[in-house]
């Protein structure tokens, strides 16, 4: 919103400081001036950012009122005088059929007006504010909004058929609005109508048929007060947000309509014409009682101290200061009682407190009853007054203190686990990334853990972001694709984040959130050669062994089993099971998926279900005894049939249960070549024997070696020469 400093100064002639100082002072009081632009002889243009609760300050007079409050200066009253009216036999008919939705309606008739371009101060201020000028009668309504914030409307009186009726729209009723759009109205819409037809959408936008034209001779000026919620619903329903609706839906000043009406009339009459009859002003007493005449609220200076705390000067906010600020804001302040009041008495004065069920207090500090200005509908409670006092006094004049604390600090139960997972992956060379929370429906279908469990967004940012991600893998793939497209061929990434699932059948009654981890790698991500399955498995082993599971093993199932996903290469992927339950799957992206994404480079992916992993405790170090005796190493080179996996060979050796067998490992695996017959592979198995109690005897080691060979032979293995 744009504001002219010269206009502010017209309303508060006592201001002597510079425009820049004025802007700073307003900003520090919450009337934010974002920019000050020099207009030379015309002062400055302020670019304002007014918070939504302060509709009263969204105009020049409102800001002038703030300035007057801050500096304790006098605010010039608005001049609402008009030339004497030509008497009429009977007043113009205005009928409010919906007293709950329209609290006040003023109408004034102007005869023999002259429609033409605006001149003088209106034209000049429009030019400075970059406001588009249309014609004097229309400009007059806009000018008054800029001046004092109350929206008004001017009708071509000769297009009206009978008096004004404020009623609900009829079902299916049509109205062509000022923006040229033909609208179908809803019975929840409030309209300003004549006896025959709707003239405008109340508080939102006027009608096309009754608008001011160059031929207009006679005008009806409307200034009214409409129910904020009704205006808001109409504005939303018809997707038409106007300056008027913005102000009405935030709560306009109930006392403003007669003044606004007079100001508009004055400007129109400057080009000619005369007032006919007295102002018609229909006031609904209930609405008046809810707004301008709303009940005073109880106020205790002790609460100011309790909520705001000490001031910089140590004196705190005195009762006199508090009352002074409230009075400057336009509040009336009266002592609730001369002596100490009881809670009951205070509640009598303050029905809003009573309804909160405040417990009776003995010797409560004497309270005050504060009446509220009609233009500040946002003030409703004691805390609102406390905020006003803090605001006008100045936030930065309060001391900086630190509250004492005697409680305990509680860590999240999985905080350490999460940090262990992150630390491990960083040490393994994976870079942390964060991707979109959303994915395309097609990806959701491919990557969801369970079929048809992905959750749709009702108003997605884009088609590609239509679903809540059921997996971090699509995001991971997208990030790897992005890197490859930018000539980053070697990449290792991980993301820790939430994945979502729900049941579309029951309309997503609930959405389940699970912490998940995805890892992805491609190219020479770890420095050496191309990333291989063993790199991914090694990373998984390192990661999963941070947790104290009883068992950890890897296996593989066809996607049809439901135990493994279809997006993984069926021959180059594995499932990791901890204590018998799936915690992860990983491997090469399925070639068909890679093809679909036009990936030219092999991409390795893994997904870890952290919700399951976090059920395990972190492994605590437990030191085992170190042997003082020499270890004996034996290497066994065997040819094994291809169908015998390493796990089967190792299992057979393990099953020997030789207590002195410290460890065994595959030192080399060879396939193909002259030395290795078709259908077989060569395994070099290194075994270490060692005892904690004694030096091993040669005969013992020989016996165990025979057993190892025997175990491998039962699998069809042949010792190589």
């Amino acid at each position: 919103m744009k504001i002219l400093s010269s206009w502010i100064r017209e309303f508060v002639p006592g201001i002597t400081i510079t425009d820049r100082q004025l802007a700073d002072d307003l900003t520090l009081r919450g009337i934010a001036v974002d920019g000050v632009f020099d207009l030379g002889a015309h002062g400055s243009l302020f670019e304002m950012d007014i918070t939504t609760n302060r509709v009263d300050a969204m105009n020049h007079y409102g800001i002038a009122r703030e300035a007057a409050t801050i500096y304790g200066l006098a605010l010039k009253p608005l001049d609402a005088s008009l030339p004497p009216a030509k008497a009429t036999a009977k007043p113009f008919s205005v009928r409010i059929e919906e007293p709950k939705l329209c609290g006040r309606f003023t109408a004034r008739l102007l005869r023999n007006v002259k429609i033409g371009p605006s001149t003088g101060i209106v034209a000049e201020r429009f030019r400075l504010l970059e406001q588009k000028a249309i014609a004097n009668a229309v400009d007059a309504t806009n000018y008054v909004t800029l001046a004092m914030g109350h929206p008004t409307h001017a009708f071509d009186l000769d297009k009206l058929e009978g008096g004004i009726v404020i009623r609900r729209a009829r079902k299916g009723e049509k109205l062509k609005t000022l923006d040229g759009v033909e609208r179908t109205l809803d019975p929840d819409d409030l309209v300003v109508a004549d006896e025959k037809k709707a003239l405008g959408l109340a508080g939102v936008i006027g009608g096309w048929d009754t608008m001011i034209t160059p031929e207009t001779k006679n005008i009806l000026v409307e200034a009214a007060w409409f129910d904020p919620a009704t205006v808001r619903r109409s504005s939303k329903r018809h997707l038409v947000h106007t300056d008027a609706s913005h102000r009405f839906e935030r709560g306009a000043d109930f006392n403003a309509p007669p003044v606004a009406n007079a100001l508009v009339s004055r400007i129109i009459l400057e080009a000619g014409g005369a007032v006919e009859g007295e102002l018609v002003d229909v006031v609904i007493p209930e609405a008046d009682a809810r707004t301008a005449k709303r009940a005073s609220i109880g106020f205790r200076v002790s609460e100011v101290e309790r909520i705001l705390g000490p001031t910089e000067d140590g004196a705190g906010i005195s009762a006199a200061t508090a009352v002074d600020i409230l009075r400057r804001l336009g509040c009336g302040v009266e002592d609730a009682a001369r002596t100490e009041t009881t809670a009951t008495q205070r509640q009598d004065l303050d029905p809003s407190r009573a309804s909160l069920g405040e417990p009776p207090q003995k010797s409560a500090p004497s309270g005050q009853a504060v009446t509220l200005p009609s233009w500040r509908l946002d003030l409703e409670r004691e805390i609102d007054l406390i905020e006003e006092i803090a605001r006008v006094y100045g936030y930065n004049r309060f001391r900086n203190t630190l509250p004492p604390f005697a409680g305990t600090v509680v860590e999240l139960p999985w905080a350490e686990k999460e940090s262990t997972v992150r630390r491990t992956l960083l040490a393994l060379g994976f870079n942390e990334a964060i991707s979109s929370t959303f994915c395309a429906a097609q990806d959701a279908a491919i990557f969801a853990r369970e079929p048809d469990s992905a959750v749709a967004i009702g108003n997605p940012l884009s088609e590609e972001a239509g679903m809540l991600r059921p997996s971090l893998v699509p995001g991971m793939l997208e990030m790897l694709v992005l890197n490859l497209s930018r000539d980053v061929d070697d990449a290792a990434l991980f993301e820790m984040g939430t994945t979502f699932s729900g049941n579309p059948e029951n309309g997503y009654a609930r959405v389940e959130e699970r912490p998940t981890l995805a890892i992805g790698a491609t190219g020479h991500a770890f420095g050496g050669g191309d990333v291989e399955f063993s790199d991914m498995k090694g990373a998984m082993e390192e990661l999963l062994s941070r947790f104290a599971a009883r068992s950890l093993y890897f296996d593989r199932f066809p996607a049809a089993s439901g135990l493994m996903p279809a997006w993984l290469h069926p021959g180059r992927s594995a499932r990791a099971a901890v204590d018998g339950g799936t915690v992860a799957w990983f491997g090469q992206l399925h070639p068909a998926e890679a093809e679909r994404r036009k990936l030219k480079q092999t991409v390795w992916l893994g997904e870890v279900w952290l919700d399951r992993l976090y059920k395990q405790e972190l492994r605590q170090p437990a030191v085992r005894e170190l042997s003082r005796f020499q270890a004996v190493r034996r290497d066994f080179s065997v040819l094994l049939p291809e169908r015998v996996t390493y796990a089967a060979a190792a299992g057979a050796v393990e099953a020997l249960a030789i207590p002195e067998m410290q460890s065994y490992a595959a030192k080399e695996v060879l396939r193909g070549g002259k030395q290795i017959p078709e259908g077989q592979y060569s395994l070099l198995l290194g075994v270490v024997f060692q005892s904690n109690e004694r030096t091993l005897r040669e005969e013992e080691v020989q016996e165990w070696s025979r057993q190892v060979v025997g175990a491998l032979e039962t699998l069809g293995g042949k010792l190589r020469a």
Partner: protein
Amino acid sequence: MQDDGIPALRGWSEAELDAAFAAVAREVETSARALTSADEKEEFRLRWLGRKQGRLKAISDAWLKAAPAEAKKPLGQRFNTLKALIEARLEASSAATSMSVPDSETIDITLPGRRRRLGAEHPLIRTQHEIVRIFQRMGYSVGVGPEVETDYYNFESLNFPPGHPARDTQDTLVVAGQERKPLRERLLMRTHTSPVQIRTMEQQPPPVRIVIPGKVHRNDAADATHSPIFHQVEGLCVDVGITFADLKGTLDHAMKELFGSSVRTRFFPSFFPFTEPSADVQISCPFCGGAGCRKCKHSGWIELLGCGMVDPAVFGFVQQKQPGYDPQKISGFAFGMGVDRIAMMKYGIGEIGLLYSGDLRFLEQFA
């Protein structure tokens, strides 16, 4: 090998023997002075200790042959001492020369190292941890909550009544198919971490000190500084006697920890439905110290967070489950800050989109 001849020996008295042996010892020392290479060392050894032509053997043969019987013992002792000296010099030189290696083994140490690179922690996570740790040191526990929230927790219980204009400031992404539910049960992507305030208070009577990091979403168009996905850290402190001055002091302290002790804070009135009084907080620009620079748009100040005293109406909602939150007895403050904005400022990140791109060229800079 040079032939230096047998040194002269004048007589067999102790003094004459000492003088003669001292002269030979000087000769040993002189020749041992420059034993650097293995070749020189071998030459020295052969010269003095060689079995056939060694000088020590030649001298001792000559002198012992000429010596009278009573002089043989003192002569022998002195030869032993001399031999020990030669061996000592040889050993000393040996210790030095064994460290020498052939030039062919020298490598180019200016070639790059073979780094096993550590992964880089994401700048948002790093910043988030930094902020959270500051508050943990001030006695705050960490809390989290769901990213998909109900309308009740995201709006209503935070004093955004249904149909209230304040809701317009937080464009919301909603879960599909919610229309048949009552408004307060409808699911949406949380627009702020503030719902966790309510969830925490509902579960725990006062006092409360909690800091809540998390991801939030808004239906906003993306540009250089706005993303529909962003991160917040929310804080809440509730107890008897918590004041606006405490809020100011707490945030002033936290900002000094985060940006350095010379940073100053200033508070502006603002509006949030769930706090009253509400404030926006600016910090003096940590880059120019307040003099004005590009990063602070030459104002010397940077707006960084929103905060305020917990609105009594919010306590009212909480009281339905935890009666201890009586706004007449307790008070509290809440604050929230954008992690993305702080990270962008700290690390000079110009585009918020980089944070969510997974672009390694960007991420690796945080290793």
